[in-house]
């Protein structure tokens, strides 16, 4: 049995001096690297339970239809089919391609039998006009697909800010004015692991076990309680390993509810993971946008006025777009006017995705800053620094400019031109994020045999979170990371946060630190009689404890633990002063453009990013690199494609929905901003995804004078911008 630590607490925990750290602020290989590399790690997809059924859902192929019949009879007679259920009745409408288009669920003994049964369901439906583009949604007489109550059009209420007349007057007085319309397509999360669950039912007095690919192991029991007809405490959710979420996996979703229902009805374990095609159709996306942006500057390059009219394109959801001016400052805040509205289509609603709305806003704003710089003949770094308030941004921009070779670049204040059809350019972008810190708990247990467990109900989406759960404790107790077992991904553990908005580190790390600190003081309380020094006067290092200033009074770790008669349990909680959530980043990209073929090759990307104390420099650089890759892929390739005639989602596969592969990846430099000496921690995953595509677009413009106002930067876009549409 364990007992909570008792006795007076001598001091508050702290992250300590960076120069004293032995584990943190270094490169720590992730603790689950070997099991992931060998395939030993069990993801939700990999869970196999005795007697398990394989479930699949049937998604209607077009967004809008009226159901005439769903005949499951032949399918239900097929070999291995155990459960089959139509989810719509004759006369029901399919209102959009998303959850509402899920027509049936099938469960069978094998995955192939489930797929075959799905194919044998006979659906008769009258297909209705698709509303898959904003043009179709805005056309006069368009079917109303908005889900707002009493909606009479597909346009949401416009959010208007500022005084248009004041903005117009300021723009009229500006020395340089840029006006452009930017078009940003819908992006998919493309998690390596699709959405889904494995549900193992149980008698009423026992816990149901749910394996979930989720960003919220702690919130999922509540999300499934009603479907499973039991209290959340009788549901245990496990996420031992997870293949990505990026904001798309906060709740069990329809697929989780259906898995739970089929498990309830059949009394058997059910495996329901979406296929890749289903994933593209119903599992969310990053909203698109159309932004008509007008920005003016004075002769010194200061932004003096701004107007934005924008449509957020979030399907049946609202979409997201932060208000202007994005990150940059307009000298007179009253000279900023914006009108932002949602335009709804009959397509899957947008969900949170890594910095929701921010990359979209960045694309337009960075372009405007570039173009004002060129109009005024200003260096692109100088005009940015002039309009950014934070000195952190200033130093970060100078740092990335140095790393990318800006000083030797010929086109610093005007676009270049191609020579023999080839041109090289450089572009920039900045980011901000405010990663919160919230209530979180952690238990650290030290056993008499010297083993240590750090346990908290967080989840590792692939970020490396599991590693710091062990490393923070190792640092505090003078151990190596492998001496601490990290337990996460289990809703029965002490509660922590949903991983969204980069809050995981800022919330869970302080609680882990607090628990580790309490464990340390609990052990020091035992040592007062042995080494004869009060709590707070010990140094824990290299697997030993010694009295500060007297290395002769010392014990090895194992001997300290042997003083315990029973396991020592230290319960930590979120401590606000260990966290600070205000971060900055700057990026630069260098590209080569072949103006004869439209090929854009990204040669190099650089990021400089602050976040307070780097817990694990290796994981941090990995996150920064991941952000650059995701932004590069967004900029160069990604685009959701619908057939506009009948409404088929053509890009429901990784053949047509193109994401960057190894050949797209440039030289990447992830610089950790070590001038940030804040004694706090926070997450930072959103920031590095915000400006990468903007920097690439800027680099294309800088190379050859072609300002691409829509994404992605594929050959058709480059060639049509250069030479016009044929």
């Amino acid at each position, binding site marked *: 049995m364990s007992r909570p630590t008792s006795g007076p607490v001598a001091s508050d925990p702290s992250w300590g001096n960076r120069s004293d750290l032995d584990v943190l602020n270094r490169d720590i290989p992730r603790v689950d690297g070997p099991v992931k590399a060998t395939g030993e790690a069990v993801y939700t997809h990999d869970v196999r339970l005795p007697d398990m059924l394989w479930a699949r859902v049937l998604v209607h192929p077009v967004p809008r239809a009226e159901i005439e019949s769903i005949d499951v009879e032949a399918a239900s007679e097929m070999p291995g089919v155990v459960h089959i259920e139509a989810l719509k009745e004759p006369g029901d409408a399919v209102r959009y391609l998303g959850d509402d288009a899920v027509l049936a669920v099938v469960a069978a003994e094998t995955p192939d039998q489930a797929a075959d049964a799905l194919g044998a369901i006979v659906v008769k439906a009258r297909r209705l006009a698709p509303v898959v583009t904003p043009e179709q949604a805005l056309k006069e007489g368009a079917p109303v697909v908005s889900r707002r109550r009493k909606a009479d059009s597909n346009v949401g209420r416009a959010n208007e800010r500022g005084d248009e007349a004041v903005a117009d007057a300021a723009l009229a007085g500006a020395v340089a004015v840029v006006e452009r319309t930017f078009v940003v397509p819908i992006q998919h999360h493309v998690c390596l692991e699709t959405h889904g669950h494995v549900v193992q039912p149980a008698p009423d007095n026992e816990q149901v076990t749910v394996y979930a690919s989720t960003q919220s192991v702690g919130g999922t029991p509540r999300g499934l309680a009603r479907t499973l007809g039991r209290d959340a405490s009788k549901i245990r959710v496990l996420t031992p390993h997870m293949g990505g979420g990026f904001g798309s996996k906060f709740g069990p979703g329809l697929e989780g509810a259906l898995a739970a229902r089929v498990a309830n009805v059949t009394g058997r374990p059910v495996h329901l993971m979406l296929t890749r095609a289903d994933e593209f159709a119903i599992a969310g996306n990053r909203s698109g946008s159309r932004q008509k942006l007008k920005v003016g500057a004075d002769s010194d390059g200061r932004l003096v006025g701004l107007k934005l009219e924008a449509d957020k394109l979030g399907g049946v959801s609202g979409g997201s777009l932060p208000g202007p001016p994005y990150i940059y400052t307009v000298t007179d805040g009253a000279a900023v006017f914006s009108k932002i509205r949602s335009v709804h289509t009959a397509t899957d609603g947008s969900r949170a995705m890594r910095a929701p709305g921010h990359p979209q806003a960045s694309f337009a704003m960075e372009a405007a800053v570039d173009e004002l710089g060129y109009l005024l003949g200003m260096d692109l770094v100088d005009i940015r620094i002039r309009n950014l308030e934070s000195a952190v941004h200033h130093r970060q921009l100078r740092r990335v400019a140095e790393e990318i070779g800006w000083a030797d670049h010929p086109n610093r204040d005007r676009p270049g031109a191609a020579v023999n059809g080839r041109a090289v350019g450089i572009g920039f972008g900045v980011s901000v994020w405010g990663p919160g810190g919230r209530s979180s708990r952690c238990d650290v247990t030290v056993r008499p045999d010297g083993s240590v467990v750090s346990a908290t109900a967080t989840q590792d989406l692939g970020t490396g979170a599991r590693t710091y759960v062990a490393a923070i404790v190792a640092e505090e107790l003078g151990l190596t990371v492998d001496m601490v077992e990290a337990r996460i991904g289990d809703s029965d553990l002490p509660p922590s946060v949903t991983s969204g908005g980069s809050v995981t580190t800022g919330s869970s790390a302080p609680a882990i630190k607090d628990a580790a600190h309490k464990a340390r003081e609990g052990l020091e309380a035992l040592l007062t009689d042995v080494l004869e020094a009060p709590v707070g006067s010990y140094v824990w290092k290299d697997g030993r404890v010694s009295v500060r200033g007297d290395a002769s009074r010392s014990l090895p770790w194992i001997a300290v633990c042997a003083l315990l008669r029973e396991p020592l349990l230290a319960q930590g909680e979120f401590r606000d002063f260990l966290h600070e959530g205000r971060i900055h980043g700057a990026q630069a990209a260098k590209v080569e453009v072949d103006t004869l073929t439209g090929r854009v090759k990204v040669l190099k990307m650089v990021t400089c990013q602050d976040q307070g104390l780097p817990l694990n420099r290796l994981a941090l650089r990995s996150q920064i690199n991941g952000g650059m890759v995701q932004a590069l892929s967004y900029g160069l390739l990604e685009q959701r494609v619908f057939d506009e005639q009948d409404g088929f989602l053509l890009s429901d596969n990784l053949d047509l929905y193109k994401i960057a592969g190894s050949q797209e990846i440039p030289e990447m430099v992830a610089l950790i901003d070590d001038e940030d000496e804040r004694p706090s921690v926070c997450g930072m995953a959103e920031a590095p995804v915000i400006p990468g595509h903007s920097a690439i677009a800027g680099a294309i413009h800088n190379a050859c004078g072609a300002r691409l106002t829509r994404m992605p930067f594929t050959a*058709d876009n480059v060639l049509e911008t250069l030479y016009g549409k044929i």
Partner: protein
Amino acid sequence: MKDFDLKLPENLDAAIGELPAEYTREGAQVLAGGQDIVTVMKDDIEQPAALVSLQRLGLDGIEWDGDGGVTLGATVTVQALADDAGLERAFPALREAAQSIGSPQIRSQATLGGNLNQRPRCPYYRHPSVSCFKKGGSVCLAEFGFNKYAAIFGGGPSYFSHPSDLATVLLMLGATASISGPGGERKVPLAELYVLPEESLETETVLRPDEILTSVTIPAPPAETRSSYLKFKERASYDFALAAVAVSVVLDGSGVVTDARVVLGGVAPKPWEVPAAARALIGKSMGPEAWTAAGAAAVADADPLEHNGYKVHLVKGLVFRALESLA
């Protein structure tokens, strides 16, 4: 995917005997590397009751004749074409084309015969719920819908662009296919192997359902021939061609082009030879002026749809770049 029988015949006659005389969606089809036919079956486009494997027919040889020509067996893998030192010396463009295909995994499994006989990549054709001319339907949704990847030459009533890189380069190299059927063997030049949608909608080649392409023979190139295959992939890591150019030139001692051949890929329902582009080169000095003229000649007859006009710009650029690489 429907269940199917896997046939493993030990000789060519037995293999041909397993194939149907007339096409049906359920009729047996040939299996080589399986990189295309299996995906066609998974997407529910064809439902063959049997696949007839060429695995045991010994069609995986690379055999040189005494004069510098070579015969490539139908089941030689794409990777083997990319790795063969002799092919690289004699036909560098073939090697470039092979290396540009798919991913390492796909190249290691995919075959020459399978590549030449692969089906269209049009997203409408590949979509399990879409009906189209190529699947027995009565419409080509690409004509007025999403046609960014569609043909700018030779389209109508269907507008897919042929995806085979090897077809494009082998046509440029003047290769001939050997085809065996119940009536014996026939030789078909690559230039006559493919048919346009206006000639046939259910197939892309002159092969009959009970015929097997067994090998391809490339004649020895004329002395001093330079050749190149330049493929533009939207996603460099692995992709089909947005457009591709296979080009060969022969230069005299003063750098004047005396012979040329230009074939385009990814822009028509079959590999698209542009004799006008070759004519624009012959007699000209090898240089930017000739390359620009050849590019312009290559697209003179293009007839793009709403979203694929950029391919006109792209082909011009690729012709220029391919010729530039041979200078």
